[in-house]
């Protein structure tokens, strides 16, 4: 009995604080949002405590009053955000995967330094870094000057305030989130297995497909989820580099809470993002589990 109780106690000690933290700072706000999304918007922000289903009706189709009217534009923005977030995941993956391989093959001292370099941007304010991208991408910016200098184009190309700029910016911001889980699984890769694979006559591509890819899949999925979730809700990048023209769902939510003073509608939109993220996590669970059994 005694050792059992001690284990319970130490479990409680170890898990108690993080559980309380999650309950208080994650679960409670989430419940507040969920409740708000079914309430009537207050005149000057806040809510009135009467049930109201038109917040979802505006998004999903049954609202038709003067102030709350269904508009497919909200679903369009949602789909666009999904697309931009997915493209961000893809570009981050393309950049991070070979980089992680390269770094994992370095000497330990250089490796530590290289990982430090990957996380270095976190030491500078995000806003400052995004404004640096404005300087790079604008018509008279470094990128256009460079392209015109080598004669690739005679007129400046419009990079700033486009989907392209948003994807570049988000990729830049989220690369560490993709890189670190990828690196963790690539570093664990057994070199003997790769040698065995080629000894047994596999081509390099076959080795990649049959050995490397399955072994690093948890890192790919983990990194993709860690990148996709914040990219989906991001609103700073589209507002600075997209010129607030490439509206993403995060911008729409921000607008509801500030300038539009419609907290319940903002909450309803946020719950939609939440639902999408939950679906994604379930998918991840199945994907990784399914693979694990197949191996």
């Amino acid at each position, binding site marked *: 009995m005694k050792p059992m109780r001690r284990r319970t106690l130490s479990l409680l000690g170890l898990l108690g604080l993080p559980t309380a933290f999650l309950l208080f700072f994650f679960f409670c706000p989430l419940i507040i949002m969920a409740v708000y999304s079914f309430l009537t918007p207050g005149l000057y922000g806040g809510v009135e405590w009467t049930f109201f289903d038109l917040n979802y009706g505006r998004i999903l189709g049954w609202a038709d009053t*003067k102030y709350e009217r269904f508009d497919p*534009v909200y679903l369009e*923005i949602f789909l666009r955000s999904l697309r931009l977030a997915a493209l961000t995941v893809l570009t981050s993956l393309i950049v991070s995967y070979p980089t992680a391989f390269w770094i994992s093959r370095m000497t330990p001292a250089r490796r530590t330094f290289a990982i430090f370099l990957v996380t270095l941007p976190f030491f500078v304010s995000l806003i400052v870094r995004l404004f640096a991208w404005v300087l790079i991408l604008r018509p008279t*910016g470094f990128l256009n000057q460079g392209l015109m200098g080598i004669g690739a184009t005679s007129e400046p190309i419009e990079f*700033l*305030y486009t989907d392209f700029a948003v994807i570049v910016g988000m990729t830049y911001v989220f690369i560490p989130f993709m890189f670190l889980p990828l690196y963790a699984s690539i570093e664990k890769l057994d070199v003997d297995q790769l040698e065995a694979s080629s000894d047994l006559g596999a081509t390099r591509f076959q080795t990649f497909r049959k050995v490397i890819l399955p072994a690093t899949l948890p890192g790919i999925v983990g990194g993709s989820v860690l990148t996709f979730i914040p990219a989906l809700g991001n609103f700073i990048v589209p507002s600075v580099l997209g*010129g607030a*023209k490439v509206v993403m769902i995060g911008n729409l939510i921000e*607008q509801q809470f500030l300038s539009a003073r419609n907290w319940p509608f903002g909450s309803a939109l946020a719950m939609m993002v939440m639902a999408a993220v939950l679906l994604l996590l379930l998918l991840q669970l199945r994907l990784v589990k399914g693979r694990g059994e197949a191996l």
Partner: protein
Amino acid sequence: MTRTFARAALVFLLGLSPFSSTAASAEEELHIYNWGDYINPAVLEKFTDETGIKVTLDTYGSNEEMLAKIQAGATGYDIVFPSVHMHDIMFKLGLLAKTDIGEHPDFKNIDPQFIRAKTDPDAAYCLPYAWGNVGIVYNKAEAGEIKGWKDFFALADKGKKVILLDDLRETIGIGHIMNGTSVNSTDEEEVAAAAQYVIDHADAVSAFSYDSIPLVTSGDVAAAHWYVGANIFVAKNPDILAYVIPEEGATMYQEDMCVLKSAPNYDNAVKFLEFYLKPEIAALNVEQQMNGTPNVPAQDLIPEEIADNETIYPDQETMDKLQIFEDLGRDLQLYNREWTRIKTAQ
């Protein structure tokens, strides 16, 4: 008013309360909560010199941000600077303290046309602080001469781009002005038509942003929808930039200086309002802010190049063409809906 930075700060700092409730110290204090870069620091220093009251200044980026914080229970602030329509809202929400500033002998300095808040017709609560118009700042080499909104949007025909403010009332307001409807219209069709005007000219618009001045200066865009404060940048680069009040009409803004009901230093706050009634103090503020003051005798004390600048102190005929935003209550949702439509029109 660098709103983006303030907004970014909001994102990162949301929830950090501005003050830990400090124990009552012997030192007299005053806590001011103002828009970013919206008061000359010399004014605050002078107040401290004269009264010995220590002033702290915190800033916000929009009326809504300030209201949200005060509503969420941020205490510790004494004075805020809401726009006129927000002054009305805060009064209705019971957030303001009565000061009777309108009965102070020096209140005769204030031009009565600036007592605009409908809920405060005798200035029993707030003091009209500063005002300005919202017009067009442009790059002279890129845009040529711009007289109004028509020239502004016609830049698209020359392959040039412009930037509009990321503000639903201001931007839909341009459509209202061009359609000859009120910027405070709550008629569904009028609002939709105003938004449609902006959408019809979307090919000229490269972005909605507050941070457009550097891009106009560098020629990356030809012109931008901006505040009269652009004159500060025009004064620095007079060969490159120019600012104009559009001939078709424009909007104006005005902020009032209000004392909060929750003010911990009410007496000091009222002292500051009275201090700001002095013409030399209002003039000192204008010197650095380059905006309009409702203080009439102050206008004789400000530097000539500001007083003579017709875009800062326009003639009465132009003044009459300026419209100010009123609180729309629930009808703001009509604008909100159209705003999403504008943002997604590519």
